[in-house]
């Protein structure tokens, strides 16, 4: 079944153009009546007087893609979804840029609202991605998810 596993990773920030293009691709799917989108954006956190300038993401990509595949399959069986797209950045993403994009679509709003929260939470908890927060002076610390 390995051939069904999609690669969620994109190098660098996820551009607003990519997000817009992804929305546009759904205009031909006229059974869809509702989309929900989650966008994760890099925050310029202030930590002990220093400001986060960027996050450098790395991952164990084989496990990450496999786990995302399982999360996707579970969501399709639990919720009445038409389609689902998941993208995460690798490498450097500056503060203010988008690093995480989850897009779910359905005939009606209830499945997209309910599934989106579940999928985002599962990905944050279970997918082996590691964020290194880079400060303006090039020092760093390892991001901890709340």
């Amino acid at each position: 079944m390995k051939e069904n596993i999609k690669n969620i990773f994109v190098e660098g920030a996820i551009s607003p153009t990519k997000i817009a293009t992804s929305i546009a691709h759904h205009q031909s799917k006229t059974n869809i009546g509702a989309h929900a989108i989650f966008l994760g954006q890099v925050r310029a956190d202030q930590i002990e007087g220093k400001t986060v300038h960027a996050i450098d993401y790395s991952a164990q990509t084989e496990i990450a893609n496999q786990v995302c595949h399982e999360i996707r399959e579970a969501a399709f069986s639990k919720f009445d979804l038409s389609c689902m797209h998941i993208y995460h950045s690798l490498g450097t993403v500056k503060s203010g840029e988008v690093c995480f994009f989850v897009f779910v679509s359905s005939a009606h709003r209830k499945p997209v609202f309910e599934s989106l929260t579940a999928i985002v939470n599962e990905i944050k908890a279970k997918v082996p991605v590691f964020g290194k927060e880079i400060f303006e002076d090039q020092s760093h610390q390892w991001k901890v998810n709340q």
Partner: protein
Amino acid sequence: MGLRVRYFGQLQEITGKKEESLTGVFGTIGNLRAHLIRCYPGLEKIHFKIAQDNTIDIDSSEVNGTLIDLLPPFSGG
């Protein structure tokens, strides 16, 4: 049989390595974990998962793969 051990995220800083080869008989994942903590005492401070052959495994499992990955806490999104 040799093991290829890869370190991810902050574990690369603690070990000073991205990967290395290990030879020896470790038995279980838990024994391998203990061995690695003896080699790199800094690992004791970090909660890390161990995967073998691209699947996260539990400490009671036998080491029967060839690729071992040490994964620190996840912080995607």
